[in-house]
């Protein structure tokens, strides 16, 4: 008997316990955002009810408590990704903000006209558009790693794509659109041969199990709290300390300075140098509570549970006539995401019909229009699973797809 019980876990998530359109909610839009356990909600509330004060400013008791909780949360999240030092973890608004920080600070100072930035067509827009903006400003060139018919990176092309002009390689750990798990270490090794800096978009990577940034070997790792049981509006950038120290601030303001003179100022130490203004204190504390919660779960069993859900979902969906599933065929190569289309039923119509059955899936381009173009579709429907989903819910999904078939034939 496994000690990990998704049904017991569900009780910790109040949102899951409700009826939608007269049916028990089946929440399968976890790649967009996860639901929040009670402990995270309590942490947010607890901060506002008892400890609310600004951080790193006051001498008074509440400020001391708020600062302590805020920095403790940093240490917890840093431990979740096995950062060598909590000071390597910069709080951001989320993954997008973290990537923009690197583009706006490191990128502006280190990428010059004629330099190349290597991306992949698998990227979320948040790991494309900041580099497009940067490339346009400095005159750099964007290059792309293509994907094969199963949505896996064409890594055989890396040797020809990586040259001494490549200053940065940026790619996702796990694709949000297809679930492809990318071999981060292999790509890092290839990038390092040409001396490129590597940024990993970890928005879908750190969410199911701990990540070891030291082992991955990249230079930056960006991720969000809300996809891993934490609140929205808080995320983090992990960066190698020497890189972070070499970088100019991203935004100026309070909190990020040391001494301010009329013409120039000196900066606070890393990571505060990058945290101008009053931060999302409650969000950071909530993010800390989220990793506390996840850390209580047996990582191996969570991974096995999600793989089993994936296998079962792929099996049940494959039975549906007209079904086309995108992404890697092997469950080993994909995270808990199934992107699909079904005959001439448009993904929006699929999603509306599933919603009427109480089932939440995402329909659209998933902020990955390059992926959609690669497969010649404008949109897909996407079911994504998390720790609290069950086999019964996949049966509900498969049954509801029969309703879609009833309408669209």
């Amino acid at each position, binding site marked *: 008997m496994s000690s990990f019980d998704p049904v017991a876990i569900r009780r910790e998530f109040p949102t899951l316990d409700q009826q939608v359109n007269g049916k028990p909610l089946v929440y399968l839009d976890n790649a967009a955002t996860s639901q929040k356990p009670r402990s995270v909600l309590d942490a947010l509330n607890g901060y506002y009810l008892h400890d609310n004060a600004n951080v790193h400013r006051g001498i008074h008791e509440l400020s001391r408590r708020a600062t302590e909780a805020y920095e403790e949360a940093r240490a917890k999240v840093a431990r979740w990704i096995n950062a060598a030092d909590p000071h390597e973890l910069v709080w951001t608004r989320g993954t997008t903000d973290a990537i923009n920080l690197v583009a706006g600070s490191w990128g502006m100072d280190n990428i010059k006209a004629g330099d190349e930035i290597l991306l992949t067509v698998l990227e979320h827009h948040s790991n494309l558009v900041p580099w497009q903006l940067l490339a346009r400003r400095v005159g750099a060139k964007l290059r792309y790693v293509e994907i094969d018919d199963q949505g896996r990176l064409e890594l055989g092309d890396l040797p020809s794509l990586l040259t001494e002009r490549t200053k940065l390689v940026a790619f996702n750990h796990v694709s949000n659109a297809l679930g492809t798990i990318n071999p981060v270490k292999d790509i890092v090794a290839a990038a390092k041969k040409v001396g490129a800096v590597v940024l990993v978009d970890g928005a879908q990577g750190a969410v199911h199990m701990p990540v070891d940034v030291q082992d991955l070997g990249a230079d930056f790792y960006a991720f969000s709290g809300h996809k891993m049981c934490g609140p929205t509006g808080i995320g983090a950038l992990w960066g190698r300390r020497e890189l972070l120290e070499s970088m100019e601030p991203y935004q100026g303001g309070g909190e990020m300075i040391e001494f301010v003179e009329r013409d120039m100022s000196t900066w606070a130490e890393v990571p505060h140098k990058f945290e101008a203004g009053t931060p999302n204190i409650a969000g950071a504390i909530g993010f800390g509570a989220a990793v506390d919660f996840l850390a209580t779960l047996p990582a191996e069993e969570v991974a096995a549970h999600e793989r089993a859900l994936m296998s079962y979902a792929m099996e049940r969906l494959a039975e549906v006539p007209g079904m086309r599933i995108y992404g890697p065929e092997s469950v080993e190569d994909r995270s808990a995401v199934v992107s699909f289309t079904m005959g001439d039923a*448009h993904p*929006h119509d699929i999603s*509306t019909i599933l919603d009427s059955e109480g089932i939440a899936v995402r*329909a659209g381009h998933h902020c990955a229009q390059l992926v959609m173009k690669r497969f010649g579709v404008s949109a897909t429907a996407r079911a994504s699973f998390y720790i609290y989903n069950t086999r019964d819910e996949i049966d509900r999904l498969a049954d509801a797809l029969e309703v879609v078939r009833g309408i669209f034939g």
Partner: protein
Amino acid sequence: METPQLSSLYQQLILEHYRSPRNKGDLPDKTVEIHMRNPSCGDEIRLQLRIEDGRIAEAKFVGSGCSISQAAVSMMTGLIKGRALDEADALAERFKEMMHGDEAAAKDRSMGDLRALAGVSKFPVRVKCALLGFDALQEALKQTAGGEEH
């Protein structure tokens, strides 16, 4: 909130227009073309009109997207052909009223097949799908009017 019925959304007439759209294809002698996209979902149409003597002489479209967006533009092109520009604009306004839940508009015979889309008003997130064609129409009317002023 009352649970909206799927059957009120996916009427046979809508599915029929979706599967066999009317007036689909390019219009070589168009006088105005509007490309309208719904970035959040990828619905897309190119509405092509030939406007002569203040009337819509011909209307065609090319596009792709969900059943609601494509059926609505298929129905719309059938109804606006031969209409004066202000009549076409009035139809667009009437359709918007129907999308906001106006029951009188939903029974208005001048709306033709479009009445089958009345149920969309119960699915607020899908209203923008239904409006895509009419947004293109109103933009085309605006551009045509602007062109005449010069």
